[in-house]
């Protein structure tokens, strides 16, 4: 894509396309990565509720894999996860290990 010059900009840096932030992938900011362990998951959806980046996909009322394009690795999901019988269903792993 040709880089935008100053003549093509909307006045006042207004963003006129709704939802365009979806194209701004923030997954590369992550230093720790949440990993889902399905056998410990009780499908409470706490992770989905707490995730500030909508990086947990839900289908038919059940959580699915993380969307690593947007997960910044904040770890809130892992902290809030109640797990099953003392075993959390989300573990944080250092990136690049």
């Amino acid at each position: 894509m040709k880089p935008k010059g100053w003549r093509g900009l909307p006045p006042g840096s207004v963003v006129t396309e709704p939802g365009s932030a979806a194209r701004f992938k923030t997954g590369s900011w992550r230093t720790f990565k949440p990993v889902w362990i399905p056998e410990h998951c009780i499908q409470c959806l706490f992770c989905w509720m707490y995730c500030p980046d909508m990086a947990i996909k839900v289908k038919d009322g059940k959580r699915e894999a993380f969307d690593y394009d947007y997960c910044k690795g904040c770890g809130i999901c892992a902290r809030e996860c109640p797990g099953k019988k003392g075993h959390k269903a989300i573990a944080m792993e250092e990136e690049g290990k």
Partner: protein
Amino acid sequence: MGKIVAVTGNEAVANALRQANPDVCAAYPITPATDIMQRFSGYVADGLVRTELILVESEHSAMSACVGASAAGGRVITATSSQGLALMWEILFIAAGDRLPIVMPLVNRALSAPINIHADHSDGMGARDTGWIQLWSENAQEAYDNTLQAFRVAEHMDIRLPVMVCMDGFIISHCVERLEYLEDDEARRFMGEYAPLHPLLDIEHPVSYGPLILSDLYMEYKRAHDDVMAKVSNVVLDVAADFERITGRKYGLFESYRLDDAEIALVILNSAAGTAKDTVDEFRARGIKAGLLKPRLFRPFPYKGVADALKTAKAVCVMDRADSFGGFGPMHMEIASALMMNDRKPVLINKIYGLGGRDFLPEHAEHVLSELSDIAKGGKVRTFKEYIGVKE
């Protein structure tokens, strides 16, 4: 045909704001601008305007509310002075950067410390680089006329920038003058209905204001802002031509007073220009070719026009009612920049006058014109910058 009245500058400006019938007004009182917002809140209470009046807790909040309301899609106003403008500082840049056509009368008053409530231009000059358009007014009639025209300039689809309309505190804001109002329907026809651009309240076309723009595009937005500023002069002149058709009152980017063949000239803003014009007349009566240039549009500054208007002058004094401590006065720096475009440059000197409401008297103008007259005849320049009317 208009209506002839005897009113103060504040009353005249408040009436122009009433005629503009804005959607939102955010108000916080500060001397000497308080009267404008006080009168306007009376119009709201009396149902004379359909404005939503927001009483805020500071000028920072006033300008913030203006930014939100303007982005939402309304015609928006406020008014302030001095410390109030200083407190708006951060948000002034946002209003301009977001290209929001807010109209704000600024009743010029000195800045603290020491605290002072009287006229000088340090508040408005301090907002020089905020990206706002600035119109300056010699008297109440000009303040009224400039306010009406400000809406047209700000809201023009090629411009969409906030406009500050400046007039001198107390000298103009609180003194009664004869002036001519437009009838309401005439004023409203002139200003036109507000047309929003990218309003937040248009939920069919959702938009976001205020995104983070880093080194990849920030400079392009600034370049675009400067480009819009380059279009302002023509719009100001078009609007002035329309205004002249209705009222017979002529406005340019600046006023040239007896400058055509002038050998000595004063450059002076706002109310003191009126005083100085009388002195220019006296010098002319004595056969001395004196003239005066009174800027009206200060941002963007009409460098080329000013340089042309001063081309016959041998000696020019820029009178500043504000100082850039350790530098020349702010107006002086503009005039010096303008004159650099001319092949033949006059001697240019700078006088600082009238700070904190110190009276500017005809004898001050006379003293300066006499000094210019000596310089024009080949006399030596005693000093390039000097305070006048100051107790030594």
